[in-house]
């Protein structure tokens, strides 16, 4: 906020701009930009036939479809579960609230491989949850629905942590005045709360989705990795690398990056819209 006061042609009093800026740009280039550019160079450097051949093979297309659809389903589920959790944590007081609030971040902190073996074991036909599903002839292991379970876990904190501060800022008086003007609970929720929370919710969903399509560690254990059925796009990159097919791996990665970055740019738009909504 102080920044705006100082904008303009103010002389720099503080030292170290050249040094800190120089090091920032150098380190950013060395660790992030130069390494990332290899994908672009590799994708544009290869024969177009190789590139399009790699990304349009039925097995790769199936993996894109799977990654996008499971990540989308999971992020929509997270929207509901995350909204519910954020609402409960902010508005209600109950025993264990602080512990739940802290544990929302567990999926950020828990290594993905550990999450992966946990869900694979929980939902195996003899697992704690899988045995009940087995009785009704339902199975999540080696199925796209198992992938969705893992991605719900991974994306959950993104929704809670973007929606939670917005609910906290929301004055209960707004709802009360709506209700005193004769709106019922459902109308208040739909006409007052949802429009207000929607930008934040959309941000959370986008973040969860973007994370979901790239996720690897938590998915591969429960997915079973059957070609055409439960092979996610990041696994296709891994498979091509194992076969030393560097061109194929780069082509698949290039498209995946393109999807992620498009999501990020869209998200940027959403955030601007969100800021506008608050002015």
């Amino acid at each position, binding site marked *: 906020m*102080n920044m705006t006061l100082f904008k303009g042609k103010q002389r720099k009093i*503080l030292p170290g701009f050249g040094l800190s800026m120089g090091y920032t740009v150098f380190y950013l280039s060395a*660790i992030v930009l130069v390494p990332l550019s290899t994908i672009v160079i590799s994708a544009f450097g290869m024969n177009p036939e190789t590139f399009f051949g790699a990304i349009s093979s039925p097995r790769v297309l199936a993996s894109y479809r799977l990654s996008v659809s499971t990540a989308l389903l999971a992020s929509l589920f997270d929207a509901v579960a995350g909204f519910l959790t954020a609402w409960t944590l902010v508005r209600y007081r109950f025993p264990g609230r602080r512990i739940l609030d802290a544990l929302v*971040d567990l999926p950020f902190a828990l290594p993905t*491989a550990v999450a992966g*073996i946990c869900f694979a074991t929980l939902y195996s036909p003899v697992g704690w949850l899988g045995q009940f599903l087995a009785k009704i002839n339902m199975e999540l292991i080696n199925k796209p629905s198992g992938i969705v379970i893992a991605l719900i876990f991974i994306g959950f904190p993104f929704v809670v942590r973007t929606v939670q501060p917005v609910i906290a800022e929301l004055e209960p008086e707004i709802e009360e005045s709506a209700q005193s003007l004769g709106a019922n609970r459902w109308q208040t929720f739909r006409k007052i709360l949802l429009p207000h929370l929607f930008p934040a919710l959309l941000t959370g969903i986008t973040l969860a989705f973007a994370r979901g*399509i790239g996720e*690897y560690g938590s998915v591969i254990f429960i997915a079973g990795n059957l070609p055409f059925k439960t092979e996610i796009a990041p696994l296709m990159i891994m498979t091509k690398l194992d076969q030393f097919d560097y061109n194929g791996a780069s082509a698949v990665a290039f498209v*995946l990056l393109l999807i992620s970055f498009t999501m990020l740019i869209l998200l940027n738009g959403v955030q601007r819209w969100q800021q506008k909504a608050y002015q």
Partner: protein
Amino acid sequence: MQTSTTRQTATITGSRSKDPIAVQLLLIALTFLFFAGFIFMPLALVFSQALQKGVQLYLDSIREPYALEAVKLTLITAAIVVPLNAVFGVTAAWAISKFSFKGKTLLVSLLDLPFAVSPVIAGLIFVLLVGSRTPFGSWLGEHGIKIIFSTPGIVIATLFVTFPFVARELIPLMESQGREEEEAAITLGARGWQVFRIITLPNIRWGLMYGMILCTARSIGEFGAVSVVSGHIRGMTNTIPLHVEILYSEYNYTASFAVASILVFLALTTVAIKGAVEKHVHNNQ
């Protein structure tokens, strides 16, 4: 926050809500149900599986030489990665929060790039850059330097993956603190480093600590990126998460969950410290 306690419709102790009690109870129950399935059960499962065949086997699994080698490599990696990214985070936050310049928004979004990249791709880019089949990689190989399938590869891939954590914590914090204090000190004749050490560092220490904790947690737990560049050589290029995977794929579930329990313990510690730091920051405001 506490204004709600004065409200007459106190529902469940101190809730700042006028939702009917039935609705409150239902939503709280649903939240607990979600947590039961997605948070509590996985946590309980790790320890139940790890201790399934007794404490002795549990201890043997985490004391076995390959497990210890994995722990060692993981700690070495974190010991290199965390200080490097912390220094970078402080430097970048200084440049971004204390000065105005063109292209700031772009720079800030570039810092977040690694979060948008799949871990597998984070590994792939370093294989493309310095793998033995690339010109640069083969040149390095001729000079006896091996990066991919060896420790340096694990370190750079982890550097990439954990790159934004510290900077991301510090930039908003330092922007909100402004630069009056530092400018006053300079005007009074303090030197650059003195200003940083005596004024800036104490102001940002909690944010810095929290960023470094997140960075440590992720560098210990990173799986996808490290999996691509490691080559999975036991006792050589195996980190703790990779060791968990190997044991699991060999159907050695007890040992796998035993080693995983170390990671769960670390994750819970991270989450707890986060809570403590946030509380501290909140109280200071």
